[in-house]
């Protein structure tokens, strides 16, 4: 298990998405309306678009290309056309630092 520093709380707006690098893994980091963070793989399983370039819709991210939707907490598909989920990663906040936790197999 490795945690990767990916950003600062003070530089992140609520209801925002950003693409971050977590030890070589492209991750879509989301800050929800309530200020908490979520992270999932940034690559859409449908056609490979960058999810962080999309929009938030409730607790989901909408892919900018074809509108597939993924739950930001679990990575589950909540809107087609995607069929396969994306990976979800735990996010830790330590003071002003944001970490994404990657479990290596």
């Amino acid at each position, binding site marked *: 298990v490795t945690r990767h520093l990916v950003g600062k709380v003070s530089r992140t707006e609520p209801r925002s998405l950003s693409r971050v690098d977590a030890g070589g893994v492209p991750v879509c980091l989301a800050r929800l309306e309530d200020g908490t963070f979520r992270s999932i793989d940034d690559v859409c399983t449908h*056609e490979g678009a960058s999810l962080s370039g999309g929009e938030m819709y409730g607790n989901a991210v909408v892919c*900018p*290309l074809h509108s597939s939707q993924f739950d930001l907490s679990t990575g589950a598909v909540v809107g*087609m*056309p995607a069929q396969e989920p994306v990976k979800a990663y735990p996010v830790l906040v330590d003071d002003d630092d944001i970490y994404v936790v990657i479990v290596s197999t």
Partner: protein
Amino acid sequence: MVHNTDGMGEEINAADPVKMPSYFPPRTHQTASYSEFNQAIRSPHLAPEPPMEKEPLSSGGMMHLHGAEHVGRRRVMNRMVRPDALEEARERYLIPAMQSQLDAARAEALPGMHPRAELVSCMQTTFVQFGAALVGLEGCETPEGVAELQRLFQTLQYGVRIKYALGNHAEIMAAAVAARAEYRARYFQPSLSAARKRRHGQSDGRPITQMDLMAQELDPAWSDEEVACNESLLFLTGAIETGAGIVVHSIDELARWLPAHPEARSRLDDLEFLAAVVMETLRLHPGAPATGRVARDDTTIFEGCAVQAGEWVACMHLPANLDESVFGSDAHIFNPHRELPRSIPRYGTTFGSGAHQCLGLRMVLGNDGVGGHAYVLRMLIDAGTEPDSASPPVLEASEREAYVAYPVIFTKLSAVLP
């Protein structure tokens, strides 16, 4: 089968939709399999084909954009097909519109006779209201407003699909350009003005429509109202044409398939099964024979296919959708029970693939795989819809496969008693 009408009423024979359409220039490369189709259409070395003859109707539209400009427009347009928008368009417009068509057929039927209808027109009227709801068009609140928009659509669709027309292109385009002017004055402009006024007021909780997006000029190109008008027109005609085509072809396929599969009749009220019917129908009946691409530079798009800058590639839908190595040895047969790996879409390449995959896919799939089209199909099946053997269907005279008339009988409905 009768082949008729090229948009100007001329009788003319249709071409084979499996063949490369004749509008492609000499030396066009064409794909012959599912794999070649996907490699070509996803290639960053190939750009969407230019608007050509249909430019007056499609200039500036999303389908012609490329790269970041395309992704930016698409991200905004996606708001039109969010779950709440699809649900409202289905529940508030599509299903009631379908019910009105069935009621009208009953009202017009002779006593003691099953109601009859021409299904293509019936579906166009139904999907005009679905498309207008997503676009946010004003003026469709009355039957007269819907009928007028449908009349304009019937002319506009031949212009939008001019590259497949076999008739007189100049005449077809002149009629379509005139219809565009009417559409702009009667529907587009008042709807955009209303959306601009709403923008200054409070949200009424309705789903976001295309007019709302345009009123906010969320894409800078929409500040040019000619571009915005074309964008709305393309979306609307696509929604109507796709919707009507899918449902009519589905009824046609079921009419031929069910007699040999009576066990499936018990599943005809199952929306998931009907969604599978829709997907299988889409695979066998793509709305267009090919998607055109033009090489941006010299490249090899798949093994043995070297393309020079400026050369065209015809990404052929049916050869891909009938690829036995992907869809099985019975790929040419309608089989809604077909089992495929999750990585293979049941609708094949009909919506294209890659960045430009059609926005209409969300309308057909819905948010959960069961779009409004399956609901409409269930209503038609409940009404006992069967082809009218006394009146043969009529195919469009073009290089694509589309019905212009499909007479049906509603065998489970009866005339309204006077």
